[in-house]
C-alpha cells in the first residue's frame, strides 16, 4: 500500500515486539522535486486545505434563509467559535477576528482528524512544522496588533509592567513576563498541539502493534490475552483521540484568541 511505504518495512521486519518510536513520524519522500521531497504529511495537509476550502465554499457561498446541509454545520461551527472562543477571549470586538479564529479552528481540527481517517491515519499536526507555522503566524499577528493598538513602547510596557504591583517587584516580574509572553507562549502554543497529537499517535500505534504482533505475527497462548487487550485498547484510544483532537483544535484557537485579545486590549 503506497500510503504505508514510508515505514511499514520497519514494522513488518520486526520479528519480536518493538515499541513504536520516532520512525512512526519519519516519512521518506514519495516524489522528489529538486531539493524538495513531497512526503505523506505534505499531501495530507494539501488535501486538508482543499477539504476546508471546499467545505467553506459549500457552506457559505450561497447562504439560504433556512440553513441546511453544509451551511447548517458551517453556521453551527461558526456560532460555536464566536460564542465560545472569540467573544469571551477578546471581548465585544472579537467578531472582527472571527475569520482567522474560525479558519484556524477548522483547519487544525481537520488536520488532527486525519489521525483516524482510514488510509490517511496520520495526524498532520504531529510534525512540529505544521503547528509551528500556525503559531508563528499568530505570534506575528499578535505583535502587529499590539503595536497598532497600544504603540510600540506601550505594548511592551503593558506586557512587561502589569499595573497594581509594588515597585520593587518589577525587577523580578518584568524579565519573567518577557519570557512568558514573547518566548514561552508561542513555543508552547505550537508544542502543545504537536505534543498531544504526537503522544496520541504513538499510543494508538503502540496498542495496534501489540494487537497485531500477538494476534497475527506471533500467536501464543500467553500472548493471546495481551493481543486482545491491545486490539480493544486500540479502538478505545481512537475514540479518546477523537475527543482530544477536537479539544486541541479548540484550545489552539482559544489561545490564539487569548493572545490577540491581550494585544488588542491592555490588561487591566
Amino acid at each position, binding site marked *: 500500500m503506497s500510503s504505508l511505504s514510508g515505514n511499514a518495512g520497519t514494522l513488518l521486519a520486526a520479528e519480536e515486539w518493538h515499541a513504536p518510536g*520516532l520512525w512512526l513520524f519519519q516519512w521518506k519522500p514519495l516524489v522528489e522535486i529538486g531539493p524538495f521531497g513531497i512526503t505523506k504529511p505534505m499531501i495530507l495537509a494539501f488535501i486538508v486545505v482543499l477539504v476546508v476550502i471546499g467545505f467553506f465554499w459549500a457552506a457559505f457561498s450561497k447562504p439560504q434563509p433556512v440553513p441546511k446541509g453544509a451551511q447548517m454545520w458551517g453556521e453551527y461551527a461558526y456560532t460555536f467559535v464566536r460564542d*465560545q472562543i472569540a467573544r*469571551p477571549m477578546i471581548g465585544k470586538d472579537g467578531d472582527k477576528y472571527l475569520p482567522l479564529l474560525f479558519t484556524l479552528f477548522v483547519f487544525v481540527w481537520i488536520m488532527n482528524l486525519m489521525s483516524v481517517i482510514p488510509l490517511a491515519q496520520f495526524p498532520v499536526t504531529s510534525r512540529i512544522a505544521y503547528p509551528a507555522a500556525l503559531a508563528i503566524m499568530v505570534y506575528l499577528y499578535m505583535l502587529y496588533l499590539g503595536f497598532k493598538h497600544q504603540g510600540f513602547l506601550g505594548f511592551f510596557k503593558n506586557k512587561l509592567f502589569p499595573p497594581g504591583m509594588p515597585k520593587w517587584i518589577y525587577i523580578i516580574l518584568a524579565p519573567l513576563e518577557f519570557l512568558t509572553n514573547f518566548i514561552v507562549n508561542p513555543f*508552547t502554543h505550537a*508544542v502543545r498541539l504537536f505534543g498531544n497529537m504526537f*503522544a496520541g499517535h504513538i499510543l494508538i500505534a503502540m496498542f495496534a502493534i501489540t494487537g497485531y504482533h500477538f494476534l497475527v505475527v506471533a500467536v501464543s497462548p500467553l500472548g493471546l490475552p495481551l493481543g486482545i487487550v491491545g486490539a480493544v485498547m486500540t479502538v478505545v484510544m481512537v475514540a479518546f483521540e477523537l475527543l482530544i483532537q477536537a479539544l486541541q483544535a479548540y484550545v489552539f484557537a*482559544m*489561545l490564539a484568541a487569548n493572545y490577540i485579545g491581550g494585544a488588542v486590549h491592555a490588561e487591566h
Partner: protein
Amino acid sequence: MGLLAEVSGNIGSIGYGLAAIGPGIGIGIIFGQGVQAIARQPEAYNLLRQNMILGFVFAEALALIGLVMPFVYNATG
C-alpha cells in the same frame, strides 16, 4: 569516587515521570477546584469551564515538553 549507581535503559522515561509530577498536581488542583466551583455555582458553568480549560492547557504544557524532550535528545544524540 567511582560509579555508585547506574541506570540502564531509556532514561527519557524517567525524565518524563519526573516532568509529569508537577503538571499532575496542577491539573488535579485545577479540575478539583473547578468542579467544586461549578457545584457551588452551576449558572457560572460556561465561564468556569473556559477558565478551567485555559488553566489546564497551561499546566499541561510542561508535561508535554517533558514527553517530547527525550525524543529530541535521542534524535540528536
